């Protein structure tokens, strides 16, 4: 008889499924609220996306987005929702790692942390390069 485990693969599955769903619901809610504010404030202005100039400065940095949320700017709220959405699969990886630690599956704890490391490296080099 195998020894009784405190946490099994099925528990990890439930937790991961729950995180993914919650992440999508919350971020979509934030994007929707931001979208309403943006349309209310800028709905009648014209936009051009033909030429690539990058995004406005106030939604480009963490401090800018934070300031934008406080001053109730639509695009800053949307961008916060989008960042939450990008974070959802990353948080999923983090919880998988915790799950594998509790299962004492060291091989997959390592693999999971490696994936997490690649994404963090991707974020850092994207900024520096």
């Amino acid at each position, binding site marked *: 008889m195998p020894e009784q485990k405190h946490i099994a693969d099925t528990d990890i599955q439930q937790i991961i499924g729950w995180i993914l769903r919650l992440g999508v619901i919350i971020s979509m809610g934030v994007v929707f609220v931001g979208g309403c504010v943006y349309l209310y404030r800028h709905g009648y202005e014209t936009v051009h996306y033909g030429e690539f100039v990058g995004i406005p400065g106030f939604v480009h940095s963490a401090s800018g987005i934070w300031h934008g949320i406080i001053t109730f700017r639509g695009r800053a709220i949307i961008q916060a929702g989008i960042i939450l959405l990008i974070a959802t699969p990353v948080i999923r990886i983090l919880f998988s790692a915790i799950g594998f630690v509790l299962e004492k599956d060291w091989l997959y704890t390592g693999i999971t942390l490696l994936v997490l490391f690649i994404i963090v490296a991707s974020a850092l080099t*994207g900024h520096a390069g």
Partner: protein
Amino acid sequence: MTVTEITLIILAGSYLAGLIGSLTGLGGGVVIIPLLTLLLNVNIHYAIGASLISVIATSSGSAAAYVKEGITNIRLGMFLEIATTIGAMIGAVLALYMQTSVIAIIFGLILIFSAVMSLKKKKEHLAEQKSMWAQKLKLNGTYPANNTMVAYNVANVGGGFFMMLFAGVISGLLGIGSGALKVVAMDGIMRIPFKVSTTTSNFMIGVTAAASAVVYLQRGYIDPGLSMPVVIGVLLGALTGSKILVHTSSSQWVRWVFAVIVTFLAGQMIYNGFNHKI
């Protein structure tokens, strides 16, 4: 065009893209990018950014259900994500230096390939041969089918891993999930049952897309005004699609219609690419 007009057009187009995408299993990204670039004259960098965000939303949303049912092979997904995230990072960096017309041509070719893949007959197979690596990495698994658990083996781990690296590069370069390439790796090379390979592919897409999205976010490719209608539209469309899918037995004609549309769009992208109009 005013902000309200363009938002409503993109919302409607994205809804259709998400609806058809979920019915055919191709994902919405393949329609979003031609819609934005060809029809609305949006710069392909912004289009890629917005598409990538919609890919994360739909894959996370549907993966949640498959993971809970235990169809997804989490260990296999985690292992192959090493390859796709490295690939996605390389692809996102390449996209910064590659000419937009070249990106458009590659996109067109991948579109045609995805359309052909969606028409292929799906066959369930169970790998007979035992792979040493699959055993070492604990990749072999079981999945529920007709109230019983079916066991399966994973073959050719190295080949599948290499193919995933390529899928990741394409995903990062073009801002799509490249689900078709991921299924080739798992279904064609690693000989995994179709149900497991599609759901595991879906599970991985969110992480692959997040790896390149962090680069695009810092480069200013992800415009909130553009991403907002795309992500909401695609997600609602995909939700409707999955509801329809439960009630219909055959979606073969939808696949054909979609394959024709996608091939036409691919031709447009390639033509414009060669003429440097994108």
